[in-house]
């Protein structure tokens, strides 16, 4: 496997401008350097360092067969905050997200390198029980994917597979999760009905309820609104706001407004590299890299 080529000529770019607050770092030709496959250091804003970290990603690399999709991604996800991943299609945001709960294990050709830790525990490694790991992480997918069972059984599914039989516990978790997902008032009278009969927006909130039922340490949202209409999207965004604080959320989105509205921190990715990572306000208003500014203002090209 080809490793990252280090070109001496461009190594100057890799000396990051950490510490230079809210000022434009003069690094020309970042995209060109990435396209060439040069080594590249992420512009990480120092504000991240002050946060308590729930999920650490260190020099993470991933290959689909022989094609490398992630290149030395290093980032720290703060606890109790919403962090969004943005970037053009195919930049590896979803891939990175799916690495957190090791969903990429399901694809035979995937190979990874680097470290990830969840509250200090390694995510990758021979001794890690992936089933136990996934129980600590909630995930919501692009398209709502309720299971072919009742609303109640959908919500308590994570507990069911853990062998929980106590009806009282299950009912309590169901109500708490549905309230958490803002679905209780709509669903409380039809808990026994099939989840597949709900509307798309309701189904997605149900999936969120399911994801938070087991009180995960991290909640992963993979473009949760891309299949929803604007009103349902608005509800989900409100919900993300409400969940902030109790849950650490990592969200992938294509929608720049959504990232700026909902998240505390934003990471911009490009061709498998993490380009710039910092507080959302700074990324959108005073990005350090011209490329980031071009992207968030829509002048990307």
């Amino acid at each position, binding site marked *: 496997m080809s490793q990252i080529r280090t070109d001496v000529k461009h190594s100057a770019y890799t000396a990051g401008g950490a510490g230079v607050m809210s000022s434009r770092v003069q690094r020309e030709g970042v995209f060109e350097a990435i396209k060439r496959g040069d080594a590249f250091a992420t512009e990480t804003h120092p504000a991240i360092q002050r946060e308590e970290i729930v999920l650490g990603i260190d020099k993470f690399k991933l290959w689909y067969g022989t094609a490398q999709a992630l290149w030395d991604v290093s980032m720290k996800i703060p606890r109790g905050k919403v962090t969004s991943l943005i970037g053009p299609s195919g930049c590896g945001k979803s891939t990175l997200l799916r690495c957190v709960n090791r969903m990429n294990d399901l694809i035979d050709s995937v190979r990874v390198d680097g470290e990830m830790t969840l509250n200090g525990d390694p995510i990758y490694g021979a001794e890690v029980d992936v089933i136990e790991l996934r129980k600590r992480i*909630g995930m919501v997918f692009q398209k709502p994917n309720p299971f072919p069972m009742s609303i109640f059984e959908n919500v308590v599914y994570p507990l069911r597979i853990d062998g929980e039989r106590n009806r009282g516990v299950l009912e309590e978790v169901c109500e708490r999760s549905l309230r958490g997902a803002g679905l209780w008032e709509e669903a409380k009278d039809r808990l026994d009905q*099939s989840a597949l*009969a709900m509307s798309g927006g309701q189904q997605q909130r149900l999936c969120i309820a399911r994801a938070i039922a087991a009180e995960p340490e991290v909640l992963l949202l993979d473009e949760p609104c891309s299949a929803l209409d604007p009103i349902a999207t608005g509800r989900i965004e409100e919900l993300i706001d409400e969940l902030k604080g109790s849950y650490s959320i990592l969200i992938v989105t294509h929608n720049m407004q959504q990232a700026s509205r909902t998240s505390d921190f934003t990471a911009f990715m490009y061709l498998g590299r993490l380009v710039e990572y910092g507080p959302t306000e700074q990324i959108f208003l005073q990005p350090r890299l011209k490329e980031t500014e071009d992207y968030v203002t829509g002048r990307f090209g």
Partner: protein
Amino acid sequence: MSVGTPVDPGLSSGAAKRGSKAPGARRGRAHSVVADGQPMIWLSGGALAIGLIMIIGLLGLVLFQGLSTFWPRSVVELTTARGETFMGQVAEFDLYEPQEYEFANLPGALADVAHAEANTRGGEVSRWQLRTGNYEDTDTHFDWISQLSILPAGAESDERTALADFESAVTFPEWAVVVERIEKGRFYGIPAAFLEGDQVLATDPAEIWGLFEQHHDEVRDLFAEKREVEKEGIGAVNRRIERARLEAKSVELERGVESPETAAAWQRYESELLVMEGEIAELTEERQRIEDLGTRYQVRFDTAYGTPRTLVLWDIVRAFPANRIGFADKLGIYLSRWNEFLRGDPREANSEGGVFPAIFGTVIMTLIMSIAVVPFGVLAALYLREYAKPGPLVSTVRIAVNNLAGVPSIVFGVFGLGFFCYIFGASIDQLFFAERLPNPTYGTGGILWASLTLALLTLPVVIVATEEAVAAVPGSMREGSYACGATKWQTISRIVLPRALPGIMTGMILAIARGAGEVAPLMLVGAVKLAPELPLDGVFPYVHPERSFMHLGFHIFDLGFQSQNSEAAKPMVFTTTLLLIGIVVMLNVVAIWIRSHLRRKFVSGHI
């Protein structure tokens, strides 16, 4: 349609408006007829129409013949030129080309007239098939009566100048009675006397009929009582004798022939046998008493064949004066025949009576087959689709499974006979039923082995359907389950299988349809012509999976091609076919109902 006019491919043929020109039609490039797709519409529609015509035709034939068989028809009487009288029911009518000598036998000028008349119809004349019954007099059940040979009714001698037609030739004797007997088939006659013992009670037909109706039910009850004594009484004692013998035999097998225990066991058997033989003698006496009581009443009939015949009342299953009764009575007889057909045992080498054992055997066999094939097929398909690593080996297995569906079913029968009966069953006999040897228990055809053979036969159907259903479960659902921390098996059992259940049911429906109609392998592994003992009954141990059984499909084959009296059996072939189709439809409707319920629950989302 003018050349160069593009037709919207979404429009049907009727919408291809003549001469209409769409804006921007490219002129100069001719659309060929083929490109327009008109011939394909006709071709595909025609293919469907031909298929429909064949299906409707087949079903219509089966339905008409099957439903009309039991309708009681009038009894006709006619006389031929040779002075023979026939009495019976018309079974069939057709045209045939007579041999030259049949014309030559006609008197005088009539031969030429008949010739000329036949020639106007392509050389053919009519003939009727009469069910004449009275086997003891006629040695046949059916007779063909040619138009050349019939005389008009009332003619004293052959003074014909033209061919008589059937309508002018037949009479409908008012008191002609159709008698359905336990043995020897139908009987047609006119009641002449009602006897009790040797004493004549009545000679007037109306009076005779009154007495018949008065006493018939009573003697039929006695007949049923006799059956009861034979089956429940004598049969039970015989079973006890057999059990006692097997007990002694198993002691002998265990201890050796020479041992004192064996001698004691056989001695005990002998003494028990003595007691039980006494019981049988008592029961036989009882049976004789019932028989004497039941056979008191007789009816003497005048027949079309000269000699009067006396029938014992209790040998008569059903009798009715066909030309006197009205529509309501005919309907009653029709329904009572259906009732006997559906609930009774067969009589007369299966050509009369009921098919209940065959219905029961078919349904039970299909159920056992489904119970065996569905779990087996589903597990195999799950492994193929979910666990096995895709590659050349899995592809080969899949192709092999699909090709299994193309193996002739008789080969499955041979395999079932060789493997299940002769290897598997024989081993079971050696281990558990040694005292019954050399008579096989499981080592011969039986309903269990037949069901398992058909399960093998229908396995590919279930595997293919399940694989497709499992593959059709959206990947997003599996991902959602994995993301919740479910293991592979939890995902399969809680998400994939429920969601795939309707598809699996489709496989089961196809398997049932295929299995219930299969005959060839069954002939080798347990379906028999007559098996009055059902695989489920009130005799310990109640379930007898080793018993051979009757099957509707095999019954049809047996009636149609193995019957002594094939003319009489022919209508039964249609009735039985109708019944088999009905049962398959019923099984399918139940399965489809369950499937649509599951689909509402697991797929579409509306409960």
